[in-house]
Every structure is written in structure tokens, then in C-alpha cells.
């Protein structure tokens, strides 16, 4: 078999030069096991079913392709929000720029510190949720991340966090290759919000493993950086306990390649997971390829999952959505919803969608819808006939299209911040 052999050659090249970080402590075991998973799988290839619409070549290659630094000239997302800032530059924790890692009801530590000591809860999660997420769909780049992550934070919420924890990813050099791995545990009845923003590096690999225990809530809002040439592959692995809540929203504007995977598993009854995203892409010389790949497993009764993904594409931009809801035999009264829609602002852009439902329980409510369309000319004329010029009228329709995804952000201040980013994109791309 030529293909697997080629894959393994690629893998050897990719791993050449990567070593387990010093002071990896207890994580050596988890990392070694991740390496053997990776060796068994090989790197992803275009022939793999889950990589059919997104070419992983530049994520696989040994060196990160160069990505220019981009000065937006605007305030960063979330800057007006009271939060605890944790800054990474090219994937390296920057203590100077970060706030003290201390907050009521939350323990926060740098991953490397956590590795040098025997912290049971981290040890029980690091690479564990990632491993669970490897079946039935292989995610080799996540295993690579677990094996070779160089930095990250571990967050354990034991109460209601008084303010959001804000992970800020700055991009400092044009060839930086960052591998970040975060572990979050929200203990019974606790609640925490994690924000993420920034381009991070020329190439970012990021895994976040999130354990949402019984009766707890995890909120996540991210605005991925606007550097045009940046590349990113990110994975969120979440395990949801009884009556827990997991809500994640991602905004992607710019970026030559972004692959966001979400792997969510309900293991306790009456859980709720809402996963949403808005992507706005202008292709052109910089190109834009954005891929949301979601896998939700209902392995408990009475859980509700909701996926809402909207993409606005123009000028040759490419959007991909692969979303699956798996309902196991005993997961009765599951309520699963999945929506993926694209608005193509011209004829050059492409949207690929692969919605999947796999249901083994008999008392479930699952629906999915996927559409792709252009601006509604009737609506546009209606607005213009009332005096709204074509540009602003189109913007109104774009925002209206995205509204359902944006509504998934619960906190109004965060929602408004994201809306400001959207308006900014529209202003920059008007006409």
C-alpha cells in the first residue's frame, strides 16, 4: 500500500526535530502513548474521508509556511471586557504581559508547571479526552499535539469564576510554529468563561480538553486572528456530565487555512451543548479556507445539542462544514439540531457541507439543514427602494444572515464585541 507508506514517510519528516519538552514529568507517559496513536494513524491525507474538502499538506509539512505579521490598527477583541489575561507569543507563555494567574474559585497554572508536579485532575484529563475523541474518527493532528505540545494552561474551576479567562495569542515572528494544549476542568456546579483571540503564530496547533462536570457550565467565545496568511488546526474535546452546559462560539475572519474541530460527548443525562460559528472570508490573493468539523455523541438521555454555523464567502473563499450527530441506542429523548448555511457574495466562492446523522435510539428528535445561497435580490431591492444604498443594504442582509449564530453567545457584552468585529469586516469589504 503506497499511500500509508507515504503517510508514514511524511510523519517521520514531521516528527524529525520535534522532541518531548524538558521537564515533561508525568506527561511523558501520555505523550508517548499519543505518539504511538499517531504512528498507528499516520498524518492526515487528502484521501481521508474527513480531509476530503481541506488539504492538510501545509499542516503536515515539517516547517510552518511563512505568514506575515498583520497590524490591524484596531483594539483587540474583548479589550473592553474585565477579564484575566493570559498571553502567549508565538505559542510561548508571556508572564510579563499576562495577569497573575489567580482568581477566586479558579485554579490556573501554566501547563509546564502542572507537568512537573503530580496534579491528579490534569493527569486524568491530559490526552485522555483527545484519546476518546479518536474514535470513530481519527484525528492524528490532535495526537501530534498531545505528544509535542510545548505550552498551555490548565484551568480548574471550583466555583463561579468572577470574570472570563482570556487567552490572547500574539503572533511575533513570521515562521513561528506553535503547539498549545490546554486542559479545563469545571467541577460540579462551577462555571467559567474562556475567551480566545489572536492569530497565535504562522501555524498554530491547539487542543483544548474540557471536562464539564455535573451541573456545571463552560462558556467559550473565540475570535481567531486576522493575519491573512496564518494557518491553524484546533480541536476542542469536551465531555459533559449530568445537567451540564457547554457553549462555544467561534468567529473566523481571515486566515489562509483554519480547521476547527469540536468533539463533544454527553456522558450524563440532561446536558446541553451549543456549538456555533461565524466565518467571514475574502479569498483573493491571500485566499481563505475555513473548515468546521463537529462530532457530537449522545451517550446519555435527555440531552440537547445544537450546531449553528454560518459562513459568508466572497472572492474565491472556501468554507467547509462537516457535522455529525451520533445518538447511541440508549440515548433516548435526544434533541439534536444542526444548521450549516453559507452566503456566497459572488460566483467564485465555494461551500462544502457534509451533515450526518447516525441514530440508534428510537425516541429522538434530530434535524439538520444545510443551505447555500446568494444575497436575496428581492430583499436587496426592497431595502434600496426605501433609500438604503446597496452597500449598507447588503451589510444589513449579511448581519441578518449571521444573526442566528451570533445569538448563541449568551453574554451580551461578548455578543456586542463580536458584532463590532463583524461590522468591521463589512466596513473593510464594503462595495
Amino acid at each position: 500500500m503506497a499511500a500509508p507508506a507515504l503517510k508514514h514517510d511524511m510523519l517521520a519528516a514531521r516528527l524529525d526535530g520535534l522532541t518531548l519538552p524538558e521537564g515533561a514529568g508525568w506527561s511523558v507517559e501520555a505523550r508517548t502513548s499519543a505518539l504511538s496513536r499517531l504512528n498507528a494513524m499516520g498524518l492526515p491525507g487528502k484521501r481521508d474521508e474527513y480531509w476530503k474538502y481541506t488539504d492538510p499538506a501545509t499542516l503536515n509539512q515539517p516547517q510552518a509556511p511563512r505568514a506575515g505579521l498583520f497590524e490591524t490598527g484596531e483594539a483587540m477583541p474583548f479589550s473592553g471586557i474585565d477579564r484575566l489575561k493570559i498571553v502567549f507569543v508565538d505559542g510561548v507563555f508571556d508572564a510579563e504581559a499576562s495577569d497573575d494567574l489567580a482568581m477566586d474559585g479558579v485554579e490556573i497554572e501554566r501547563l509546564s508547571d502542572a507537568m512537573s508536579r503530580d496534579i491528579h485532575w490534569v493527569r486524568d484529563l491530559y490526552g485522555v479526552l483527545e484519546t476518546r475523541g479518536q474514535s470513530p474518527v481519527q484525528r492524528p493532528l490532535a495526537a501530534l499535539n498531545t505528544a509535542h505540545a510545548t505550552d498551555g494552561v490548565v484551568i480548574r474551576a471550583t466555583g463561579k469564576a468572577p470574570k472570563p479567562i482570556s487567552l490572547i495569542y500574539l503572533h511575533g515572528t513570521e515562521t513561528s510554529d506553535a503547539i498549545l494544549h490546554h486542559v479545563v476542568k469545571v467541577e460540579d456546579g462551577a462555571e467559567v468563561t474562556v475567551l480566545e483571540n489572536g492569530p497565535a503564530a504562522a501555524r498554530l496547533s491547539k487542543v483544548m480538553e474540557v471536562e464539564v462536570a455535573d451541573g456545571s457550565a463552560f462558556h467559550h467565545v473565540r475570535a481567531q486572528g486576522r493575519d491573512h496568511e496564518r494557518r491553524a488546526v484546533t480541536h476542542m474535546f469536551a465531555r459533559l456530565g449530568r445537567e451540564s452546559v457547554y457553549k462555544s462560539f467561534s468567529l473566523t475572519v481571515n486566515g489562509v487555512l483554519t480547521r476547527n474541530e469540536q468533539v463533544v460527548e454527553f456522558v450524563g443525562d440532561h446536558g446541553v451543548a451549543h456549538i456555533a460559528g461565524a466565518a467571514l472570508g475574502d479569498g483573493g490573493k491571500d485566499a481563505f479556507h475555513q473548515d468546521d468539523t463537529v462530532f457530537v455523541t449522545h451517550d446519555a438521555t435527555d440531552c440537547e445539542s445544537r450546531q449553528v454555523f454560518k459562513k459568508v464567502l466572497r472572492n474565491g473563499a472556501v468554507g467547509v462544514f462537516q457535522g455529525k450527530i451520533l445518538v447511541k441506542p440508549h440515548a433516548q429523548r435526544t434533541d439534536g439540531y444542526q444548521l450549516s448555511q453559507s452566503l456566497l457574495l459572488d460566483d467564485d466562492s465555494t461551500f462544502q457541507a457534509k451533515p450526518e446523522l447516525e441514530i440508534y435510539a428510537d425516541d429522538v428528535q434530530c434535524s439538520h439543514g444545510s443551505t447555500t445561497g446568494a444575497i436575496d435580490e428581492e430583499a436587496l431591492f426592497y431595502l434600496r427602494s426605501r433609500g438604503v444604498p446597496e452597500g449598507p443594504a447588503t451589510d444589513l442582509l449579511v448581519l441578518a444572515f449571521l444573526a442566528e449564530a451570533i445569538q448563541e453567545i449568551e453574554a451580551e457584552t461578548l455578543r456586542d464585541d463580536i458584532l463590532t468585529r463583524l461590522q468591521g469586516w463589512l466596513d473593510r469589504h464594503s462595495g
Partner: protein
Amino acid sequence: MLEIKNLHVSLEGEDKAILKGVNLTVEAGKVHAIMGPNGSGKSTLSYVLSGRGGYVVTDGEARLNGENLLDMEPEDRAAAGVFLAFQYPVEIPGVGNMTFLRTAVNAQRKARGQEEMSAADFLKEIRARAKDLKIDAEMLKRPVNVGFSGGEKKRNEILQMAMLEPKMCILDETDSGLDVDAMKLVADGVNALRSEDRGFLVITHYQRLLDHIKPDVVHIMSDGRIIKTGGPELALDVEQNGYADLLAEAV
């Protein structure tokens, strides 16, 4: 106010002419009605005046207070004072009715070099206007026309007209789909806007709307032309005898 001369229009990409030389002048302060059988070109005329795409003007002109409408974008026509009350108002999910109207009002003001209306003034104004049309606050918050009944949609059109204060109001079969009570409400709304410096062009199939909105002049349109013009009695004549005699007369 509105002067249409020898207007010839075809559908884009087709040779077939729809308007074949329309001549019409609407003076300020007057209400003109256009009646005519299906397919006579009434709605096309309203669309061409408001700037909808898909039509080709092959000859003639249309001016509003001397300005050539046909060269203008739809939004510029609106700013110049043209308003079309749609036969089928468009539903726009995700755009709040209030947001939509405020954007429109301020876009027109901006185009005319006027100051934008403050949020407070706008709210005060729209509440008063909505009350007259029996439009409740909830309807103002909902997305534009989404889930509105036929009557609500038409009332919403008149609300927009009231807020935008156009010079030339074109009503395209505003009576279609309305029951008697709703028609009265809409007609009252229109009548409240009648003024010395505003012209109306009311397109309708039936005379009954004209019982409520009394026209000064009635035109009969057939096969892309205005074939007869008269006073209000012309509408009554149509109501009693149909179009057949008029059409026969015209040939």
C-alpha cells in the same frame, strides 16, 4: 410633479415590450388611479419607476420634479421622493422592522444633506404613526414582514410611507388581500398623508379602494398604454361594466 413621456419598457433578455408608450402626468396634491386588466403593465410601471432590475427602458422618460428618474439607482430615487408600496412586501428574516426603518429614514436624510434623526425622536415618531395604523410595538420589533398577515404587511408599507414622507407615492394593488376593515385602515393611513405637495399614483384592479381613497383622475391601462383618462366616474363605469367596452372602444 411626476411626468412620464412615451415610456417603452421590455423585460431584460426578451424582445417582448410590456409598456408601449405610457404618457402620464401626476400633479402635486393630486391622486391619480390606474386601473386595468391583468397583464396590462400596471405593476411593471410601478417597478420601473422605483428602479427594480430586470427591465430595459427602450424609449421615453420619467421625471420627478424635473429630475430624470430612469438614470438613478433605486436608493437615489427614494431619496428624491419616490415611494413604492409593494403589492407583495418582502420578508427579511433577521432584520428588525425598527432597525430597518431607522436605517432607511437616516439614509434618506443623509442623501438629502439633512441631519440624522436621533433615536429618541425616531422612537417618538414611529410610535405615533404606528398607533394610527393600529400596529403594535411587538410588530415593530419583529423582523421585517416575517410572519405578518397580509393586512399587517400592507399596514407596514403605509407605516414606512408615513415615516419616509415621500413626494410621490406609488401604491401597487395595496388593496389586494385585504378585508374591508383592513382596507379602511390602510385607506385612512393614505388619506392622512394627502397634502398639497405630495402626489399619489394608486394602482388597483377594483373600484372599491377608490371608495376610500378618492382619486382626482382615473386612467385605464391596457396592453402597455393608457387608453382612457377621466374623472372618478370612470372607475364606477369599470366597476359596473367591466373593461370590455373600454377595450373595444380603444381598438
